[in-house]
């Protein structure tokens, strides 16, 4: 079992003929992802590693029945690619590129809500469901293993660190979700926790957060009603104060966003909060 991404997902790759797109298409196939096609305007009709390339998402969907797409196009073209996917019936959209303008991300996420599309990212490593042997993303294949732990993270490399430590401790994962590091992303801790709540195979959840914003505080409210144990690790204990956005940031956050505020909220909600990444696996072991 897994959340959001399963073996049934039929995946296309937007921007498949670029360096990144081509490399990661191979990696995804090697992992077991059902990649049914790709797009690259002007290159329709070609095949890459046996996978058909289409000029448009419309043609790709028609020919393959794809319902999920992973986007590798350069940031200035990402909004166009996302809308093309959504308007053509794609229901799971993974946005890999970083440096997508925030207003573009906002437009994508707003449209996604209207259409019931799940957006992962932007600026994410993607999503992987080891139990289903499928992934949409750029994470290294070998560090995951199937098991009962759900992982949701804001940042990529740090989540690799933690997923690998879980794997080494014999704690496999149902699904690992990278929400993305940008100010506006499709998912938040609450939406992903809600998915894990309804996944019978997920017995415990690891949250990897960091300073800034108030996503962790909001998640805390949700954890109280989750009915599954949560271990949280938040990075940024020693980090310099984040860039302040005039007074507006301070007024929005009102004391939220600091590590103390987040850890306090999570602890009060019943989560186990650890202070260093290498303490996560041990804390999870105690709970399952």
């Amino acid at each position: 079992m897994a959340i959001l991404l399963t073996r049934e997902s039929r995946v296309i790759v937007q921007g498949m003929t670029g360096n990144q797109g081509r490399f990661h298409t191979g990696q995804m196939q090697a992992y077991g992802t059902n990649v049914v096609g790709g797009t690259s305007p002007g290159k329709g009709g070609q095949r890459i590693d046996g996978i058909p390339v289409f000029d448009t998402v419309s043609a790709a969907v028609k020919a393959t029945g794809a319902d999920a797409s992973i986007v590798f196009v350069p940031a200035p073209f990402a909004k166009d690619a996302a809308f093309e996917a959504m308007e053509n019936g794609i229901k799971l959209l993974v946005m890999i590129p970083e440096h997508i303008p925030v207003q573009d991300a906002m437009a994508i996420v707003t449209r996604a809500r209207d259409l019931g599309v799940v957006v992962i990212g932007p600026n994410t490593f993607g999503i992987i469901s080891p139990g289903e042997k499928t992934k949409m993303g750029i994470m290294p294949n070998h560090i995951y293993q199937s098991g009962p732990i759900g992982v949701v993270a804001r940042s990529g490399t740090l989540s690799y660190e933690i997923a690998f430590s879980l794997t080494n401790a014999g704690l496999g994962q149902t699904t690992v979700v990278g929400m993305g590091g940008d100010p506006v992303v499709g998912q938040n801790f609450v939406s992903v926790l809600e998915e894990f709540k309804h996944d019978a195979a997920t017995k415990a959840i690891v949250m990897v957060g960091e300073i800034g914003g108030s996503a962790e505080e909001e998640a805390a409210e949700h954890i109280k009603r989750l009915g599954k144990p949560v271990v949280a690790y938040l990075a940024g204990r020693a980090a310099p104060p984040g860039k302040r956005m005039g007074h507006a940031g301070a007024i929005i956050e009102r004391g939220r966003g600091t590590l103390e505020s987040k850890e306090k909220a999570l602890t009060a909600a019943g989560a186990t909060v650890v202070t260093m990444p290498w303490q996560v696996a041990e804390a999870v072991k105690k709970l399952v």
Partner: protein
Amino acid sequence: MKQYEYLAKQILASYGIPIPPGRVVDTPEDAEAAVREIGPAALKAQVLVGGRGKAGGIRFAQNAEEAKTLTKAMMGMDLKGYTVERLYAEGKLEIEQEIYISVTTDGNTKAPLIMASRAGGVEIEEVDDREIVRRHIDPRVGVEPYFGRELAAALGLEGTLFKEFSDLVVKLYRIYRDKDAELVEINPLAVVKGHLVAADARLNIDDSAMYRHPEIQRVDEGSVLEKKVQEIGLAYVELDGDIAVMANGAGMAMATLDAIQFFGGRPANFLDAGGGASVEPTAQALGVLVSMDPKVIFVNIFGGITRCDDVARAILQVKEGVGIPVPLVVRLVGTNEAEGVRLLAERGIAAYSEMAEAAEQAVKLAGEGR
């Protein structure tokens, strides 16, 4: 990218938002001439830090002579780590009331957020929540004039101010949209002789959107070293410790600082070598760390897209080029780990695989720790 006040005000003015008469000055003689022309003026340091008034970055000149003297004193002064290189001489205002207004992006609701208060001014962050009006904007709908009227009504404005404020809300949102702003803020939005005028302004442009705004001036921020690393395309922040740090990924870099502090050490910097930096930029970044003259250099890599053998090659390139005269601690796991570890071992560098062990060793070599 933050904009200086005078640049922000130029943009406000181009959208028809009233600003006080003002001029950029960078010599005492300039200031003298400016005040002769616009009368008694505020001399405002153009630096990208908040709270500049409280730190002595805003002074008032009654006449041209005074402007000259004050400018002499202010130019080159240090304001919270920033050197004052130019001032903005702006006609002194008889302010009757101070209003706060901003448009920003709320990451939680994923929508633009407009905030306003009649308790504007320097103490806005301390103002009671109930005195701040917050309205989210549906980006599909935007801000039509009625939205401005409703906001003006919510603030209890009347007559001329009601009309001027409603109108300003529409313009401010247009700036936010047109310029890809992360933040556009007027504080205070002053009431002078019964009319609104933007007495101070902030405008931060989304860095990711700068490519589509050739009309917006590029503003340099940060120290010389910070700019140097940013030119390589990596994220870097100076700290005041003595263990230089390089990690890949922002979260990982933060966790690395945390680990150093956990064992009692003090990190000298934050350096995110990126999710997939190749040999050359990694070597350049490492070169910057060497030039900082730290006690220890700690490289913490979990290779995903980043390949461990590339990192190893970068380390060896620097070691055999400019040299690494201080102890080096390397933690290397992930993609192409075996090759990376072997390359380093050939040249006598033993890589760690556990982050905790490596961090503890770095702290120990710096002569710190518990």
